C-alpha cells in the first residue's frame, strides 16, 4: 500500500524535488502528473491572499483524501503540499503529484485530489485588496462542490 506524503507549510515548495522524490530510481512508473495552484492577482485587484488553516486537521483531512485516491486508482505515489500564511500573486498555494503505471490513473487521481481537497481540507482564504482595504473572506463556490460530486 502506498503511503501518501502530506505537508502543510508556510514555505514554498520545490516542484522538481517533489517529482524526483516520487519517481527517481524507479522503473515501474509510466506517468507523473503534477498540479500547481497559484495565487492570481485578479487583474491587479488583489495584493495578497491570507490562508488560514486548522493545524492537525488540515494534515489529517489531506491524508484522508489521498488515501481515498490510493484506494480508487493504482497509484505508485502521492504527494500533497498545501501552504498557509500570506501569499502574493504568482506564489504557489498547493501542489499535488500523482504517479502511476498508467496515464489516466495519474490524471484522474490528481484531478480528484484537487476537487476533494478544495471542499474537505480546512483552509480558508482572505483577500487583501491592492487599494489597501482589508478584504473579504473568499466565499466557497458551488462549482467546487459540484466538481467534487462528479466522482
Amino acid at each position, binding site marked *: 500500500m502506498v503511503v501518501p506524503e502530506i505537508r502543510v507549510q508556510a514555505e514554498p515548495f520545490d516542484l522538481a524535488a517533489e517529482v524526483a522524490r516520487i519517481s527517481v530510481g524507479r522503473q515501474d512508473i509510466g506517468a507523473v502528473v503534477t498540479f500547481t*495552484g497559484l495565487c492570481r492577482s485578479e487583474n491587479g485587484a488583489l495584493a495578497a491572499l491570507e*490562508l*488560514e*488553516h*486548522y493545524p*492537525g*486537521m488540515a494534515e*489529517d*483531512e489531506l491524508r484522508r483524501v489521498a488515501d481515498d485516491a490510493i484506494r480508487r486508482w493504482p497509484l505508485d505515489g502521492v504527494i500533497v503540499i*498545501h501552504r498557509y500564511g500570506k501569499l502574493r500573486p504568482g506564489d504557489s*498555494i*498547493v501542489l499535488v503529484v500523482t504517479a502511476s503505471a498508467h496515464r489516466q490513473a495519474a490524471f484522474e487521481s490528481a484531478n480528484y485530489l*484537487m476537487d476533494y*481537497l*478544495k*471542499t*474537505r*481540507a*480546512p*483552509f*480558508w*482564504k*482572505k483577500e487583501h485588496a491592492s487599494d489597501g482595504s482589508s478584504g473579504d*473572506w*473568499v*466565499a*466557497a463556490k458551488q462549482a*467546487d462542490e459540484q466538481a467534487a460530486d462528479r466522482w
Partner: protein
Amino acid sequence: MKVLYFAWLRERIGKAEEEVVFPASISTARDAMQHLATQGEEYAYAFENPQIIRIALDRRHVPPETPIGAAREIAFFPPMTGG
C-alpha cells in the same frame, strides 16, 4: 471541552479558541452550536446562519446531529476555500 473558531467565525467571536463546559442537556454538535449562540452578541452574530456553518469533532467533519459524546475538541468554521 476545547472549542475552536476559524476564518470569519473567529473574527466575529474575537477569539480563536476557548474552553467551554457545556450543560448536561447539550447532546449533539448542533446543540453545542445553539448553546454558544446564546453567549453574547458576538456569538449570536457568528452563528446567525447556522445552516452554513461546518463542524468538526476531534478534527473530523461531522453532520450537526452527531452526538458530541466524549470528544475533546469541537471546531466551527465556514465552508472551506483552500486549494
